[in-house]
């Protein structure tokens, strides 16, 4: 997805003279051509992430649509106050594209993990949060939102679904309908959730848009006695509040997500998924236990 993000951003830089890119050393190779073509609008600040966001806010103050990019914890957690104040409080638009979702950088250890990103950003009023599950979806969502005048986070992950859906900000896709629980698969969790739900009489929704949250689709599919199971690629229960607020009827909620603990293992993302019960086998077991 990172390669797609750079390609789409480079297109936007060519197409819209009010687009700018602010980097903090990460992925500069992917933006080399963009920088060659537009040196005044592609800035690499070096390894200073708080200033990266501040500089982007400066571009936004001048009417630009800045796109900011680095590794998840250094995009969201280190410069959190700049995201909150420089963009959120000031009412500025900007696009923040991460790389290294959750434990994509599994070998790097907890310093480079980003499982708390969505939970953190949900505390900033007006911050939009998008979780594509495929590079083509990232392209679609980035083009749809880069000039939306709101701070917008695009969570790019290594894990992807086999094919893209026709996603849009603020909209959930109904993948299948069933009589039982409503399972909401978020971003790259879709394929494994569909596989895990095979043989179960459940509805499956696909969410790439955390904020804005498609409350109406969830409420309509969940029905009068809602039982909602979130399958989240980040910390479990990051989205439970959004789902709860969407439903008028008393509801049961469960979350299949990343447990809230610091991992001590390295290895691969797939091994972490297995440890966390987020592979097909683990999700299938949780679903059957919950139903």
């Amino acid at each position, binding site marked *: 997805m990172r390669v797609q993000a750079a390609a789409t951003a480079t297109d936007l830089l060519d197409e819209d003279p009010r687009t700018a890119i602010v980097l903090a050393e990460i992925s500069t190779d992917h933006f080399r051509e963009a920088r060659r073509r537009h040196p005044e609008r592609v800035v690499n600040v070096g390894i200073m992430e708080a*200033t990266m966001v501040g*500089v982007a806010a400066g571009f936004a103050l*001048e009417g630009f649509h800045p796109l900011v990019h680095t590794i998840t914890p250094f995009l969201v957690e280190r410069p959190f106050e700049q995201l909150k104040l420089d963009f959120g409080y000031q009412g500025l638009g900007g696009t923040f594209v991460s790389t290294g979702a959750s434990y994509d950088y599994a070998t790097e250890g907890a310093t480079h993990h980003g499982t708390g990103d969505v939970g953190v950003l949900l505390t900033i009023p007006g911050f939009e949060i998008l979780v594509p599950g495929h590079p083509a979806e990232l392209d679609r969502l980035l083009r749809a939102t880069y000039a939306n005048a709101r701070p917008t986070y695009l969570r790019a992950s290594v894990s992807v679904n086999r094919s893209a859906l026709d996603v849009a900000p603020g909209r959930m896709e109904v993948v299948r309908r069933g009589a039982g629980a409503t399972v909401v698969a978020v971003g790259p969790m879709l394929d494994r959730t569909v596989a895990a739900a095979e043989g179960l009489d459940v509805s499956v929704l696909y969410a790439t848009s955390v904020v804005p949250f498609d409350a109406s689709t969830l409420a309509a599919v969940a029905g009068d006695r809602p039982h909602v199971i979130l399958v989240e690629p980040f910390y479990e229960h990051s989205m439970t509040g959004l789902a709860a607020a969407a439903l008028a009827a008393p509801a049961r909620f469960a979350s299949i997500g990343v447990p809230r603990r610091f991992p001590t293992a390295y290895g691969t993302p797939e091994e972490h998924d297995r440890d966390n019960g987020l592979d097909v086998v683990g999700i299938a077991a949780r679903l059957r236990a919950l139903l």
Partner: protein
Amino acid sequence: MVERDSEMAMGGSTLDDVRRLMALATGDEKHDESSTSTLDALWVLHDRVLRLNPTDPTWEGRDRFILSKGHGPVAYYAILAAKGSFPLAWLDGFLEHGSPLGSHPDRNLVPGVEASTGSLGHGLPMAVGVAAAVRAKGLDARVVVLCGDAELNEGTNWEAALLAPHLRLGNLTLLVIENHSSSIEMGPWDAKLRAFGWAARVVDGHDHAQLEEALGATEPDVPTAVVADIPRGEW
């Protein structure tokens, strides 16, 4: 001359007018010295240096000014009012519920305020971005950002201080109000900032001629730093 009860200042106001206006905005005694120590530099900037149009605060050709430290904004508000950015009567409501004038300026509430500040260490990085953006637009506008000496304890300022010369931002001026409020010794300013790549000088923070000359100077491709020294007790 600014009249106390006039709706908007009509130009021709003086520094004495501003001092009278500052007396209208009471209630932030905690930051009194912070405000009075910025007065001369802010006045010189807005009266003699910056290219501004108070009746059109978003005019594209204007110079940009960011009050980074945010604290003690009474002098800033009084100067904006004296120059006609907003009605003088607003000063009476300083800090009151429903007033646009709080203890830290909000760009979405106060005409002429370029950036909302208050949390220290945000203004200089944003000013670097504004200066780069202004250059990308092909404008010849200048960007001036005011930081306090104690504010410059914050590490983000030194990130931005490292970055601005790297980006060759000759349109950027850092104005430091050195009112000796920092618990940590911050000097020597000129050597420190020159080592980072800035054209730096220290001037008497009450001397209008020195301030005007220093704040009016720029160098191609090199950001400028002007340190306005205000000795303890002369706030």
